[in-house]
């Protein structure tokens, strides 16, 4: 018998390809897998938006080959009104769940949270592996619904009842399409719950010696706060989806009211509540918006601090504000339901915290702007996208002040104003956060640098393009342009068609920029310039003190010990302009935690 004790202390890296790259329990591999899934999902989502925009700008213009995707949905390569709605639903679902939740939270969080906390791995690595594969399994039925007889569901990513619960009589995709959609979301919830379990326990229990909670970088705080939100929000969406599936397959009446007549058919359901779905969905849906954006806030702060060479005005206030956003996000969900026929008193009750939530948001923005004031910012692709995030977050956030008031929301709710608002504030802003993170962490993840010139071109095109797409949306909304229409034939809408044409061209232009990014990403992965060292941006947090790419257990033989706050830049008397968290240098800035 040989002695096994030496092996028990340190578990080595798996050697087989399957355990290394497919069913890996290594958080870094899982993070990359999540990133790849998000990338594929983003491409599908973007393609769908192109198809929709082409149809909106040039309604009768055939899109070559579209009939191959669906012969019934696009006969003669021109999409039917129903097919437009199906593409719109899938665009929303894929983007919100599989891109905006997956990339900034699950992908970057998986890769960097254990490293930034100084842990070897997450505490439940098998759950972590399951988390990814269940999420991947969730993506399959969603994509499969494109290839079923009647295509995917057309009910919008919010799947309002009763349309979502009445089956095929509601239109193409409302039977099997909805069941596949709800199954996909159920699986997605399980994946995210498993992820949240690992994120929370990693942050609380796995920190290395010296790593107090306040010494965690802002990114780690962003992921931690997000995981708490995810835990509570996805745990509510899953039961809602189960009830929806039961209304389809078991003939229950949770969401379908009695005596509902659709296309001359009286439905057999008895006395369900249509508002119930909205309550359950938006209790998840609003925190979901913050699940998409809070990790981006962390990433942007982290990137900016490194490039400003100074900490934010207040580390603590930034953390408390992000936590306040999370806490308030549960109290505001009713603002999505101002036009649902809800009691007006309830609208008022939900309007108040909605206005209150602008306070922590504003504090965060002011801390960013105040810290940037007078800073000698190093301009690179990552810092540009971080600035772009702030710009988009402000532009999209300002329209939130209007929509928070029920009396104004009633006018604007069903228009493009809302579409412009949420695309800027959570869609584009979160995407910019993902881009900032990608350019910033690419050297650590792959050992190579991304091409800076292409990165800057990507930024300029995306920044201008996104504003050209989404600013006119606000104008369209104020002009009364209803959303979810596939063509604009009413008298008052016809003059707005040129604006739609402009937006379509801007969307194609912006999409082109994303293809540049994709090229840069893939090319740099294999042929990019090698990273000059382990710390090319001269950062201070733990991911920069380990090798590139990090070894299997993140830190090699010696686990890190943390002596400093996360952002010790430009400290007087220090040997360089940054002090790493692991540095034993006996110098500190006056405001460092004692």
């Amino acid at each position, binding site marked *: 018998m040989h002695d096994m004790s030496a092996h028990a202390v*340190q578990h080595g890296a798996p050697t087989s390809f399957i355990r290394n790259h497919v069913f890996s329990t290594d958080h870094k591999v899982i993070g990359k897998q999540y990133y790849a899934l998000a990338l594929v999902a983003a491409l599908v989502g973007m393609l769908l938006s192109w198809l929709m925009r082409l149809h909106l700008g040039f309604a009768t213009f055939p899109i070559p080959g579209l009939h191959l995707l669906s012969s019934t949905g696009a006969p003669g390569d021109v999409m039917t009104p129903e097919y437009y709605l199906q593409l719109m639903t899938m665009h929303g679902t894929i983007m919100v769940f599989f891109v905006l939740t997956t990339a900034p939270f699950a992908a970057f969080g998986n890769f960097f949270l254990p490293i930034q*906390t*100084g*842990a*070897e*791995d997450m*505490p*439940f690595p098998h759950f972590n592996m399951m988390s990814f594969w269940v999420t991947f399994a969730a993506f399959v039925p969603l994509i499969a619904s494109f290839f079923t007889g009647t295509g995917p569901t057309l009910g919008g990513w919010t799947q309002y009842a009763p349309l979502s619960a009445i089956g095929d009589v509601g239109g193409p995709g409302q039977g099997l399409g909805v069941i596949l959609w709800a199954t996909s979301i159920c699986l997605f919830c399980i994946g995210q719950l498993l992820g*949240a*379990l690992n994120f*929370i*326990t*990693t942050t*609380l*229990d*796995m*920190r*290395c*010696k*010296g790593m*107090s*909670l306040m*010494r965690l970088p802002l990114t780690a705080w962003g992921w931690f706060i997000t995981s708490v939100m995810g*835990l*509570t929000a996805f*745990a*509510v969406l*899953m*039961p*809602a989806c*189960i*009830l929806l599936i*039961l209304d389809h397959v*078991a*003939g*229950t*009446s*949770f969401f379908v009211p009695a005596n509902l007549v659709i296309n001359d058919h009286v439905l057999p359901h*008895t*006395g*369900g*509540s249509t*508002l*119930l779905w909205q*309550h*359950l969905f938006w*209790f998840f849906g609003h925190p979901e918006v913050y699940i998409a954006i809070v990790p981006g806030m962390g990433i942007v702060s982290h990137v900016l601090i490194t490039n400003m060479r100074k900490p934010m005005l207040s580390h603590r206030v930034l953390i408390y504000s992000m936590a306040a956003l999370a806490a308030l996000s549960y109290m505001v969900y009713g603002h999505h339901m101002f036009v649902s026929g809800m009691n007006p008193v309830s609208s008022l009750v939900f309007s108040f915290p909605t206005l209150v939530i602008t306070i922590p948001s504003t504090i965060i923005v002011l801390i960013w702007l105040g810290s940037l004031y007078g800073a000698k910012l190093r301009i690179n692709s990552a810092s540009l996208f971080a600035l772009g995030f702030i710009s988009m977050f402000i532009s999209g956030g300002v329209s939130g002040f209007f929509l928070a008031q029920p009396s104004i929301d009633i006018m604007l709710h069903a228009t493009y104003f809302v579409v412009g608002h949420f695309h800027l504030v959570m869609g584009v802003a979160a995407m910019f956060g993902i881009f900032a993170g990608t350019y910033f962490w690419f050297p650590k993840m792959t050992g190579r640098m991304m091409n800076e010139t292409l990165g800057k071109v990507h930024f300029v095109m995306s920044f201008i393009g996104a504003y050209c797409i989404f600013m006119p949306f606000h104008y369209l909304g104020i002009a009364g342009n209803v959303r979810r229409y596939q063509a604009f034939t009413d008298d008052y809408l016809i003059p707005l068609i040129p604006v739609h044409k402009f937006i379509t061209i801007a969307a194609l232009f912006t999409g082109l920029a994303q293809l540049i990014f994709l090229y840069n990403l893939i090319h740099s992965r294999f042929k990019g310039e090698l990273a000059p060292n382990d710390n090319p941006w001269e950062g201070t947090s733990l991911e920069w003190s380990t090798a590139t790419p990090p070894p299997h*257990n993140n830190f090699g033989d010696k*686990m890190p*010990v*943390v*002596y*400093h*706050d996360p952002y010790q830049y430009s400290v007087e008397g220090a040997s360089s302009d940054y002090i790493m968290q692991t540095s034993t240098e*006996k*110098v*500190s800035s006056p405001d*460092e*935690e*004692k």
Partner: protein
Amino acid sequence: MATTIHEPPKIEQDRLPNQSLPSQGSGNGGWRNVAPAGGDLRRVKHSSPPPASTGIWVVLAAITMSFAAFTSALIVRQGTAPLVHITLPPVLYLNTLLIIASSVTLELARRRIATFMGGPRDQAASPARWLYITLFLGLLFVAGQTFAWMQLKSQGIGLATNISYSFFFVLTVAHALHVFGGLSGLVRVIVKLNKSVLRRSTLDATSRYWHFMGALWVYLLLLLWMKL
């Protein structure tokens, strides 16, 4: 190799200060584990709990949210159209006694195991006995629930009979699925105990989960009894 020596199971204590577990190996941050700036590392006073202890609360929080969602669904649905009154199958009350009894036996098991660690050898009979009884009572509970469903089915009552039965089946089945999770946890504890590799945190986490299932069932029974 003819002599059999009964060794007490090695139950690892929670991590001690400055002592990291080999399996985790990543040191311990802890809530107040601040190393001050300037290179002096303050002695760690409070080590962090093993992840299973924190993790179980995270799991229970998620389950609480899910059942809160079901509860609010029941309340909102009741506000739309009055629920039909139904009589709960009487076997549920017996099942309630079973799951409460299983919590008691699990607590006895936990104490026995703790005593067994440091106690005299004559108590070493079988610390797993009460765990087996708990497992048996848990299985009886699930069997009892299944009996209730079968009884209703034999009367021609199903998920879609009326909204009250819809909620009855959704809540009881969802709970039973979670109980299955608890049962597999108990099996895992027994296996580890028999192999003498059981950790205190695993035992505690499993028993917390099991007690929670009992409390959740009592809550659900009251909810169903009052609302339906």
